[in-house]
């Protein structure tokens, strides 16, 4: 008796015609999600961890202040001295009254510098702040 191989007569191809579409969809997702970082961060910092976090919903309202491990302060895109913060932030606050200042301060910093920044922000009347932190596992 002769054994015949059972084989479907149809072609055994995975249809790849829709592959580009799928990839484009992924691509679109990432394009929408991506915020290209327009600020170069010059200072090194490590954020503290905390549990009671809230998200900043509207990224357009945010100004950033970094405080590095070495105590240098960066406001948005340049390194500044502490007493310059008031003028810069005041100008910003006139443009954008609801500005939120996100403080990204190295966790090894001292409170002195934090308080000085806060005083500057109070004088500039940019009073909504957010201590940036990672979520604690």
């Amino acid at each position, binding site marked *: 008796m002769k054994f015949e191989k059972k084989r479907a007569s149809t072609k055994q191809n995975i249809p*790849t015609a829709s*592959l*580009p579409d799928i*990839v*484009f969809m*992924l*691509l679109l997702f*990432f*394009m929408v*999600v*991506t*915020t*290209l*970082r327009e600020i170069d961060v010059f200072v090194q910092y490590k*954020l*503290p961890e*905390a*549990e*009671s*976090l*809230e*998200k*900043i919903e509207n*990224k357009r309202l*945010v100004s950033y202040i970094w405080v590095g491990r070495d105590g240098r302060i960066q406001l948005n895109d340049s390194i500044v001295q502490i007493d310059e913060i008031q003028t810069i932030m005041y100008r910003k606050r006139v443009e954008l009254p609801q500005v*939120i200042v*996100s*403080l990204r*301060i*190295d*966790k*090894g*910093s*001292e*409170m*002195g510098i*934090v*308080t000085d920044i*806060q*005083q500057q*922000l*109070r*004088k500039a*009347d940019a*009073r*909504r*702040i*957010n*201590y*940036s*932190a*990672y*979520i604690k596992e």
Partner: protein
Amino acid sequence: MVKIKKGGIREAEIPSSSMADIAFLLLLFFLVATVIDVDSGIGIVLPEFTEDQELVPISKDRMAALLINENGDVLLDKEVIAIPQIKEALIPRIESKLEQPKNKKLIVSIKTDRKTNYNLYIQALDQVRLAYAEVKDKVSFEMYGKKYLDTNDEERKEVREKVWEIISIAEPEKVK
């Protein structure tokens, strides 16, 4: 006679097999360029800046004074406490003031030295916030039978009015 040959109709097609590759390249670029930014943190609103501060007398039992010194010791109302215990210590005190009017509710004051570590301050602030969050959850559960985060705007406002959160961040003392 020369026969004019008509060229056969060629199939005019743009090869689309490499389309996927191109799309993948783009995809890879965006994958690499994406920074999923942490924009989460502890939000507070600083008080207004005034030149002359007026001192308002505040009764002792309204205040919960947290002091963190430069060595990382934490005092809650003059008693030494470990940072993870702050939450438990504050919850009953917040709850005892729930029925009071807004201007009689608990004030949590956090005071640091200039040399205090920032991380400790955040941990302490976090504990205070957690204590308030827990009380809010409890209150909204009693009032509406659901967690604070599941309430709608109006209910949330009610809960917030009841558990009025006052955190005062005292300025560090000048170095003597």
